[in-house]
């Protein structure tokens, strides 16, 4: 098991946002967390990447307890997040943004050129915009940049926070097909999405979150046809 979350509790002040959830991601899997606003999806992801402290419970990565590990050390283990709202560096060029991805492997990493080429192959649009400043990219391009930058760190597990948020339908389809392609290269993916249909179609397995609890789990297809899930998240 690559990632294992056991009985996780997270608080914002006195408000308990995550009330004891458990789930896991196996090597080579795409797993989706779906749910409405406020279900705790983003919080869960932020806890795994180490930005939010855990009140109770454990997070294991390849059997190692990383519950209290600093965020930047988790990146070294191979957990890399493309953050919500993209979180790209606006004043750096596209190339510099991508190069920040290799930061954990040393600033002058030997494989940097090859990694850059790989990302440009996945996202030709970024290749055309290499010298443009990150802050001047469109929303879709910024999302590609965020995913590309996370890829540059050669992660074992990629955390994607709402990759389809605010994108045009055509771009959404493209982003999800790239998620599949990344996965086919051996990178496991944990994805948080409001776009439940697309997320479940792409994922091997899914978890449905509701106000801080996991209420349902199953393979992507099972959840897609589940009447309760359809009624609540897939528009009937």
């Amino acid at each position: 098991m690559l990632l294992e979350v056991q009985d996780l509790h997270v608080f914002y002040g006195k408000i308990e946002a995550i009330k004891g959830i458990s789930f896991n991601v196996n090597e080579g899997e795409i797993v989706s967390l779906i749910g409405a606003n406020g279900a705790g999806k983003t919080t869960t992801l932020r806890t795994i990447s180490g930005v939010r402290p855990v009140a109770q419970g454990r997070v294991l990565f390849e059997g190692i307890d990383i519950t209290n590990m600093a965020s930047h050390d988790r990146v070294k283990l191979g957990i890399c997040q493309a953050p919500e709202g993209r979180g790209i560096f606006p004043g750096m060029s596209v190339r510099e943004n991508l190069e920040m991805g290799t930061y954990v492997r040393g600033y002058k990493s030997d494989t940097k050129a090859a990694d850059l080429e790989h990302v440009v192959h996945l996202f030709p649009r970024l290749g055309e915009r290499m010298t443009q400043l990150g802050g001047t990219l469109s929303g879709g391009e910024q999302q590609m940049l965020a995913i590309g930058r996370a890829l540059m760190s050669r992660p074992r597990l990629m955390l994607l926070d709402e990759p389809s948020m605010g994108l045009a339908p055509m771009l959404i389809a493209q982003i999800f097909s790239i998620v599949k392609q990344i996965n086919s290269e051996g990178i496991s993916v944990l994805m948080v999405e409001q776009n439940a249909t697309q997320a479940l179609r792409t994922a091997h397995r899914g978890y449905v979150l509701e106000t801080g609890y996991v209420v349902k789990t199953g393979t992507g297809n099972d959840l897609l046809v589940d009447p309760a899930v359809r009624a609540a998240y897939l528009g009937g």
Partner: protein
Amino acid sequence: MSLTESFRQRTTPQLQLGNRFRALPRSAKWSLSALLIAALYLTPYWPDVPVLGWIINTPGTSFENVLTDQIMMFILVALGLNVVVGFAGLLDLGYVGFYAVGAYTTAVVTSGQFTLPWIAALPLSVIMAMIAGVILGTPTLRLRGDYLAIVTLGFGEIIRITANNSNWLGGPRGISKIARPPSIGPLQFGVLNAKPYWYLGFTVILIVIFVLTRLENSRVGRAWAAVREDEDAAELMGVDTFKFKLWAFAIGAAIGGLAGSLYASKVGFINPDNFQLQLSILFLAAVVLGGTGSMYGVIMGGFLVAWIPERFRGFSTRRYFVFGVVLVLVMVFRPQGIIPRRGAAAGIAKKGESDV
């Protein structure tokens, strides 16, 4: 987008100048740089040059002393503060504290109670300021933005008030008989001739520029830029943000201490009034005016903030009015400073958008 575009257009003249310089053959680059450096070493003689002399000279006060006591210090301090504010994006309103630590260290260890030679006092001052930076930074760098600004503001005042109330720091009377740099041959570091202090200070400035340029283009510089652009994203890319913020603070403090030490040994006498809060504000003004994060920008900013009030001394108390007008005009027409850092406009545009 259009906002960003218009900023970019405004910044082109400098970028073109820079690009044109980079496009020159190596030999031309070296000789141009050497000429420029030679001309800058001769700054004390600029008032004797026709036209330039009329522009640069400070009526009613010795240009030499303005150059060494004000301009030189402001340039050094702006370079140091730029590491904190410009490279790492941390707002420090108490930078004068480090300047004071450097000055007081040199003063205390060379003026009677102890009599260390100047050459030992200088590095000691730098180290003491650096330690002060780490001591202040360790608890406070977990704070962000406004909170950090307030805490650093308090630190600057604590240093000044401590000096004012400590007998061994001279109290309000201050410390006199601070050691001067040792004279070497024709370079006599005395009271009458300020030129040797400029030769020394400008050499120090060149060394600081060299070291900072190396740092900015290293892995450390990249980490600072990432922290400045988006601290959370930097952490998610594996940057130990706290460590690098502390480094920025320590290095910035060290340069502040260096400037303070040079200042103390130039003027020979310091008291707490030399380290008012107002100086912190002026230091920050120098950085912002010149171009936060741009090394040549903040040098220009440091020069202007020190020089303008002296140049317009003839206007008596209204000289600060001239200074204020210049500040406002620059901020209206060039919000990212006179010589902006590349990418500064994108940061400003992005913040503007998110406010809407």
